[in-house]
């Protein structure tokens, strides 16, 4: 089938030009984090990687990512050996910046390749829509903000995820899909959020017979089990031999952190905290008790134990239970009907559940929801209806990551560009649904999108003029509460769509 212009490669080239121009842009401490990891993996023996703590940014990703850094460091050695010294903290020569920024662009090629696989795996009438979706992921403002300005390697890892999802489309490559996802888990453990969907889907579609759930396909089970075991052995084996697994686990899962991150990720707990804030003002009038010790702490924006002044406290156990509950609901449907579309839907809902109810969720984790969702967003107009508020909310919620004035035009103009382009394009591409629309969801989402304009204007401009440096938490609180409404709204909408289609 002929290529539909513009091709993914063309988009990637033009996007790369913009990303290279962004080299001198603001970079967060994550830049130093990754430089430190380059230094650790390059200059220390394997068994010291997870113990090294010269820098406060210790290695807290699983071993495959450490191996990945080690490979990068082999190139870095040729560029500027000074960046590979563990004690060389905050080192950012222009060679280091060029190298690290460029490595993000280069490893993102995996995403381009995976998206091309996705387009090629769609046929006929869907191909056009698939290409639009693929380009929307490639040009995602989330990836631009997080990877190319803030600094991380998500592009590469979402490339692995999408490749794995595409492999799950065909029965013959199901095994490879599972193995690739296992490898991804060994690279960044945040993808554990999506693991339940994989587990159920592979169990039902690969390990059990398609005809009856009571007939187990033993050979498949052995292949999958052995493969996954081999991958985990490759990742953790060397460390297990030295008995370092508990140390790694303590690095990967730091449970001492609070419910909400310093800046509230737009989830249920952001709304909960917001209500708590409001109740502090109202409590004396309606006679609710206020805990004085909680007033000055956590929800004001410090990492640590979160305690609420009026509402009951939330424990990790509650978060965990809620997450599992809301993951289980779509998984049941997936188990009964293990189609690829259901798989992507369930995966997206798993991402939603853990993002919305998880403990100490990062705002960046919203990519876990929006990227899988993009793949099915234009299945029909009802999916698109649920996608639209998410597209707006998730990207607005990322804005506080970049707070320097020079990057303000980039993040806003790029996001508005992307939203106009793809929301209009998707609107034209999405076919009508065979089922009726439900209530006034479309109207609400249009209203919601409109509200974002005064909100961004207030948070980035008006607040500064009115209050200067004081009440700095206000814009952040408004942004995350606003975004939380959008994410929760789109979640509810998508749940309805998922279960009625």
């Amino acid at each position: 089938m002929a290529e539909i212009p513009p091709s993914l490669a063309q988009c990637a080239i033009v996007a790369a030009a913009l990303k290279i121009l962004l080299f001198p842009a603001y970079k967060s401490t994550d830049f130093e984090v990754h430089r430190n990891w380059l230094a650790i993996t390059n200059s220390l023996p394997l068994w010291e990687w997870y113990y090294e703590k010269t820098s406060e940014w210790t290695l807290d990703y699983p071993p495959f990512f450490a191996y990945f850094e080690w490979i990068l460091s082999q190139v870095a050695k040729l560029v500027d050996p000074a960046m590979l010294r563990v004690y060389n903290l905050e080192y950012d020569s222009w060679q280091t910046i060029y190298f690290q920024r460029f490595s993000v662009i280069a490893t993102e090629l995996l995403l381009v390749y995976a998206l091309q696989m996705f387009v090629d795996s769609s046929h006929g009438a869907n191909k056009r829509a698939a290409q639009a979706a693929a380009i929307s992921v490639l040009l995602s403002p989330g990836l631009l903000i997080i990877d190319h300005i803030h600094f991380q390697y998500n592009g590469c890892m979402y490339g692995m995820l999408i490749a794995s999802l595409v492999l799950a489309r065909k029965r013959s490559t199901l095994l490879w899909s599972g193995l690739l996802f296992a490898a991804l888990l060994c690279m960044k453990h945040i993808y554990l959020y999506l693991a339940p969907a994989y587990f159920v889907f592979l169990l039902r579609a690969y390990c059990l017979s398609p005809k009856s759930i009571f007939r187990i396909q033993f050979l498949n089970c052995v292949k999958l089990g052995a493969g996954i075991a081999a991958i985990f052995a490759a990742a953790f084996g060397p460390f297990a031999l030295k008995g370092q697994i508990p140390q790694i686990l303590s690095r990967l899962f730091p449970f001492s952190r609070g419910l909400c991150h310093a800046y509230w990720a737009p989830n249920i707990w952001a709304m909960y905290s917001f209500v708590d804030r409001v109740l502090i003002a109202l409590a004396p009038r309606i006679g609710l008790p206020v805990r004085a010790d909680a007033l000055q702490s956590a929800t004001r924006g410090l990492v640590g134990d979160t305690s609420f002044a009026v509402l009951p406290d939330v424990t990790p156990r509650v978060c965990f239970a809620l997450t599992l509950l809301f993951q289980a609901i779509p998984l049941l449907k997936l188990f009964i009907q293990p189609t690829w579309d259901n798989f992507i839907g369930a995966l997206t809902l798993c991402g939603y559940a853990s993002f919305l109810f998880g403990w100490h969720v990062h705002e960046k984790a919203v990519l876990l929801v929006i990227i899988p969702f993009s793949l099915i967003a234009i299945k029909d107009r009802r999916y698109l209806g649920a996608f639209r508020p998410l597209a707006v909310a998730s990207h607005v919620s990322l804005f506080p990551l970049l707070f320097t004035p020079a990057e303000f035009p980039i993040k806003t103009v790029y996001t508005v560009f992307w939203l106009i382009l793809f929301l209009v394009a998707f609107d034209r591409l999405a076919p009508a649904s065979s089922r009726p629309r439900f209530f006034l969801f479309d109207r609400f989402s249009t209203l919601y999108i409109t509200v974002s304009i005064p909100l961004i204007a207030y948070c980035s401009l008006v607040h500064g003029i009115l209050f200067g440096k004081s009440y700095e938490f206000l814009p952040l609180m408004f942004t995350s509460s606003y975004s939380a409404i959008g994410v929760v709204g789109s979640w509810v909408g998508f749940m309805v769509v998922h279960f009625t289609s």
Partner: protein
Amino acid sequence: MAGPSPSPHKPRRKAKRSADPTSSFGNSGSVRPVETLVRAPAFPLAAFLWPARGTVSQWELLPLILMAAGLFRWAAGLWGYSGFERPPMFGDYEAQRHWMEVTTQLPISQWYFHDLEWWGLDYPPLTAYHSWLCGKIGSLIDPSWFALFSSRGSHDPALKVFMRATVIVSEYLIYVPAVVIFVRRYSRLSGLTNWSAAVALVAILMQPATILIDHVHFQYNTVMLGFVVASMSSMLAGRNLWAAVFFVAALGFKQMALYYAFSVFTYLLGNCIFPRVNIPRFVAIAAVTAASFAILLLPLVVGALYDVRRGIDSRPDIDGPRPPLPLFQGLAVYLDTEAFYYPVVEQLVQMVHRIFPFARGLFEDKVANFWCALNVVIKLKKYPAPLLQRGALLATLASILPPNLVLFLRPRKDLLPLAFAATAWGFFLFSYQVHEKSVLLPLMPMTLLLAGSHGLSKSTRAWVGFANILGCWTMFPLLQRVDLAMPYTVLTLLWAYLLGLPPTSLGVYLQETGNTWSHWATVFIHGSFYLAMAFWHVLALVLSPPPDKPDLWVVANVGVGAAGFSLCYLWCLWRLLNESEILPRSWFRRKEKAKVQ
């Protein structure tokens, strides 16, 4: 948006989709022969806009184009500017910032006199007013940015953001609307579809030389260029008076607009004479021009008089008797230095003196024009300055005479960009005191050709692309000096890629039909120049020049650049003669052959 059938549309990046999904192919309404015949996009920029074919509404397309162009500009602005942390004098950035300081902190009568050694104001008054406005706004944000004396050489990062913002805002208020309107009018005049016009618009806005000089290196050329485009656009619309007003504004912003002055003059004059003599039109244009100049100078004149009344001296640093006028000293005989009008005369003479530095040499630094290239062969310094000045004047006149004669005899709208480009090339190559950044002036009208008839055809793209890439290449030494090689590389290659030009693609040189001599001549000429440019880059990267000739690479750059620009001049002139049909057909056959040899 009904129907489960997938629409044939594929919108995406920079794509500006159509209003009606069913209309992308075989749209029967208006005339769109080009798109319906072409099955696949010929170059990447066309591919990006491909899903927007058949678009009815430009209002969906335009915001996306402007946002994309703005993003690249702002991102390029994150890089350094000229003179960043380079004491003692810093660079153009400091000059512009200093003018904001001078204009906001000092009375208007001192603007052209204040401490001329430190980036004294040497642009016409509109630049001064623009600096005043920017300075006032900036002082609201942080008064220390433009404090007198203490702010010199400031490298506050927040100030950089503000300064970058003033460039981009000025450009989006003047240049961008002017180009958008020009492209719309010119493409309609040439019978192009909206879609082709949109492609041309993106190509013009992404022109690398302008972005590199204004948004990276730092200047406000686009304001002046914008006024010139607005003037041309008014000519297209038949509004000659507005054309005069806009052109005076361009001149009032930057004297460099004089490169175009001849063409503006001959076109407007030709309009008053052909097809029949129209005296009232001539008088109106003359009156409006004079009035515009008067308005332009009014604040300066009134300010000078007002400052005298307030007892403010324009030159507080000088005690004793008034120094003589810097120019036109003969006037002093007729003037009474104590008369009320004398400060005004002094002010205006000083302004002219600052704007036209006759005392400087034939060329500044190394610039890819005729004189600098000739200097390699014959040392021009040994000749007396008046002789050189006269030589430059004659050569310039000789080079600009042919295109302007054509424009005068055939004052046709569709010839405007070609005539402007040829005239500006003439000025750039032969005139006095040329700066390498001046190459923006001939490039602007030449790039506008993309929106004309056959503007996106291979031969036009090849030549417009060649001129632009060569232009950027001649500015490389300037950019390299302030560590801007990376944005140079990215923006130039990106533009070359979008338009399918070398070094990213050879597509423009592969012709489907016909093997004319002129085609092969183009291939040969462009091929050798592109090879020379690539070879030069490799040389300059790998080898350092011999110690006794530290400027060797720059001189080589200048030589190649001057030769290439001369060809661009000839190409513009040849096309102008060809399209104006002023000469008998048979002449062209000969000329074409002559070009090959």
